[in-house]
């Protein structure tokens, strides 16, 4: 009997929420930070069918009679946060057999039920680039996900384009993480690292030439090579390279490779960005930075600075942020922008970096990253000023559905921790894997 009542309840809940997507919803009374455009006091955000249909101040937005209204007086609304580098979802990419494995897909590894995904929702993250680690020169293909609720399969989280392809990039790394003192087929030096990567891209160029020469003649087509096929996508600008790099000389190596092969690249971590900010800006390459509580932890990050955000902003480069979760907790993602502002970055650019800049780095700027008409209804409701330590994420909405609500007991547990909050959690430490014998 109890079971039946429960079933009915679930049915009602599901039907109501499905219906809710069809009906327009208006969020009124809040301060709205659209990121693109000026903040609006006492604004209205109107959504329908998972999209934003209006954003503006209370006097200009007209509400139809069937609209469902939520009063958010004294609250702040801003776009859902975009995390351009994370390791949530318990995924793992390449194995220890070789340093370059572009054929490996995180798609075939991610656990859509991982509690870390819910934790990210509670931190206000709605879109995320989930990557394999950095213990390889290339550890495989990354996934751009929407943190929708109740995902049964990884496909439920993917972002598809009109042609039906799902979005994702590819992870590269240089510096010490992918070096192995034991030799084998892994590099032992920085020059060797670059040489191995160049070698693969040269092969990919050749592979692409063969395919082009073959034209429609199937007999002349080269044998299918999953790794080279992926690198051809990179050469064609269809798949962005997310390049883990820390030291100033390693950053310059990435820029050199980018110039040689012309791929789209995002510099990831960029710990010494402050030393080569002008060079980064000149190369017109975006940076996704991380803010950690103290310098060091490994040799390459001893010179990392809170000031990276300010230095890149000043140089005119596009700058975003990432959690690198488990390195920083997704629930404290907004704190990264707060610390960047502490060290000289403007509030506007810091909030832009949490949302729009990251969306651009994932080529999703037409769908997410700001509150503009026609974009996905991905937004968060905050208890106050976004960069205050006392502010909490109260609600997270993805495509017109509420996926996190701090007033819900289960969601609250995810947000603050406690017994059972991370029960199926697997500790994945990015950037260093003892089992593979990587160097620190």
């Amino acid at each position: 009997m109890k079971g039946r009542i429960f079933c009915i309840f679930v049915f009602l809940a599901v039907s109501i929420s499905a219906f809710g997507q069809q009906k327009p919803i208006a969020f009124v009374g809040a301060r709205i930070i659209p990121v693109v455009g000026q903040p609006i006091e006492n604004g209205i955000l109107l959504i329908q069918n998972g999209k934003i249909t209006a954003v503006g101040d209370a006097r200009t937005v007209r509400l139809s009679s069937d609209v469902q209204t939520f009063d958010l007086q004294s609250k702040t609304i801003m776009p859902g946060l975009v995390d351009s580098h994370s390791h949530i979802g318990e995924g793992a990419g390449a194995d220890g057999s070789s340093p370059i494995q572009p054929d490996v897909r995180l798609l075939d590894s991610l656990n859509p039920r991982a509690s870390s995904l819910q934790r990210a929702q509670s931190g206000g993250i709605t879109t995320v680039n989930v990557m394999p680690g950095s213990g390889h020169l290339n550890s495989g293909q990354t996934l751009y996900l929407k943190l929708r609720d109740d995902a049964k399969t990884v496909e439920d989280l993917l972002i598809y384009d009109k042609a039906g392809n799902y979005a994702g990039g590819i992870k590269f790394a240089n510096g010490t993480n992918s070096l192995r003192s034991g030799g084998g087929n892994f590099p032992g030096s920085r020059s060797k690292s670059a040489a191995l990567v160049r070698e693969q891209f040269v092969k990919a160029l050749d592979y692409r030439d063969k395919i082009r020469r073959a034209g429609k003649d199937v007999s002349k087509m080269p044998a299918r090579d999953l790794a080279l096929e992926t690198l051809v996508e990179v050469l064609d600008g269809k798949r962005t390279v997310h390049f883990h790099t820390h030291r100033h000389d390693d950053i310059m190596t990435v820029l050199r490779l980018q110039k040689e092969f012309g791929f789209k690249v995002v510099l990831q971590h960029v710990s010494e960005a402050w030393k080569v900010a002008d060079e980064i800006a000149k190369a017109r390459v975006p940076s996704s930075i991380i803010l950690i509580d103290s310098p060091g932890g490994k040799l390459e990050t001893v010179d990392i600075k809170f000031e990276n955000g300010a230095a890149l902003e000043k140089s005119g480069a596009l700058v975003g942020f990432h959690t690198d979760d488990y390195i920083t907790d997704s629930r404290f993602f907004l704190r990264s922008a707060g610390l960047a502002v502490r060290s000289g970055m403007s509030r506007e650019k810091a909030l832009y970096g949490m949302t729009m800049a990251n969306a651009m780095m994932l080529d999703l700027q037409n769908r997410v990253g700001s509150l503009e008409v026609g974009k996905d209804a991905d937004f968060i409701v905050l208890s106050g000023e976004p960069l205050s330590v006392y502010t909490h994420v109260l609600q997270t909405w993805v495509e017109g559905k509420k996926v996190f609500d701090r007033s819900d007991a289960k969601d609250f547990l995810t947000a603050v921790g406690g017994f059972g909050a991370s029960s199926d959690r697997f500790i994945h430490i990015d950037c260093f894997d003892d089992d593979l014998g990587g160097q620190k």
Partner: protein
Amino acid sequence: MIKNFSTAKTQRRREKKRNLFMNLLKNPLRLCVFAVIFSFTAHAQIAVRGETVWTMAGEPISNGVVLLNKGKIEAVGSANQIKIPSNYRVISAKVVTPGLIDAHSVIGLAGHMNQPHEQMQIETSSPMQPELRAIDAYNPEEKLIEWVRSFGVTTVHTGHAPAALVSGQTMIVKTFGKTADEAAIVPMAMIAVTLGESSLAGSGKSPGTRAKQAAMLRAELIKAFEAVRKADSARTDRTNQNNANNRNAGNNPANNDNSPNVSNPNSMLNNPPTPNNQNAGNQTLTSALPATDLRGEMMQTVTRRRIPLLITAHRAQDIMTAIRLAKEFNIRIILDGASEAHLVLDEIKASGFPVIVHPTMYRAGGETENLSMENASKLKRAGISFDLQSGYETYVPKTRVVLFEAGAAAANGLSMRDALATITIDAARILGLDRRIGSLEKGKDADLAMYDGDPFEYTTHCTGTIINGQVVSEIVR
């Protein structure tokens, strides 16, 4: 030991000053430069003005003044009450707090580069090494010390890491000083014990289980008790015999004073028989004395209740094991980490033991999977004595900053005052130093932190740090 040291230090300073002065006399230009520098750095008298002064001894003072003289706090009060002498250097800040105290860290032992040559926080050759002194490993020039100092941290309880059953000793330092000896205010504070998953030894070695951890600790404590019992009875025997000798030979009884000297970690135990001691060669009596092994000696300081065990225990079951052991042996303990403290609040409260709780933003996973950002506020509500720590980090970041952790606690249920107390006066109390540091009160060490706004806000800066009346950081960070 501390006293001896400071005498040597003063002497060294005097010598240095004398040499400098002689050189300066030879060059008038240098003398000018010297005069300027001297007036800036060696200013012994400072007045710190704050729009808000959190004394942590009563309500915060608005428009307050703290006078510092000769390394101590001379006066605290509102600007109306306190007249600033004209020769005092005046420093102004929006918010002034006591110098922050990090109740448990590994900085100075665990270097920021994370390379083998500067990772001194854990020694893996044996699971139980209480004889390892923190002061022999502490590097006062380690970059992370300067880092936390620039956020207002003036005192740190640091030492061997929670990564072995008994990893070694801890010490309490000021975050300033040329040598470990100069930085140390308590050269030997506690012995670090770790229960649970993070101190299990692998591949057939002990301890391989939780029960084995407890058994090994119990065996060691029983050994220490036995040694103390034997030593005490030997001393009684010896005293009796000496008294007899003294009557016969007129020896000075002071030579036979075996009472421990608490201020000196190296003489906390019974002194071995000295050559002056007439019983030194007596086989029967010396065999009744405890063997002078360093490990045994350290455990005896615990069974004698001279120093506490700092027991890191995250799971509720490990917290209960710590309390069980403490009760069995009537020893002093401080619970550390305590991710699951919120599950056994009544039991912790009943035990009376204080808790140095994990950093608020600590990562959840493994034995810390059930930690809560509200742990601190729950301990507060339960009336348990507790403070906060920056904890032990093995990768990036290599250290947390206790200021940020207290801020996160303030955002998760603690009041501003209570959160600040976890890194000032409450921390001082648990470390046994509340008569010297932790609040802005007359006679206490002149340790202060200054901020340009609410110290916990992400966008506020620490504008200066003062230790022992000396401005040790002026970086705006």
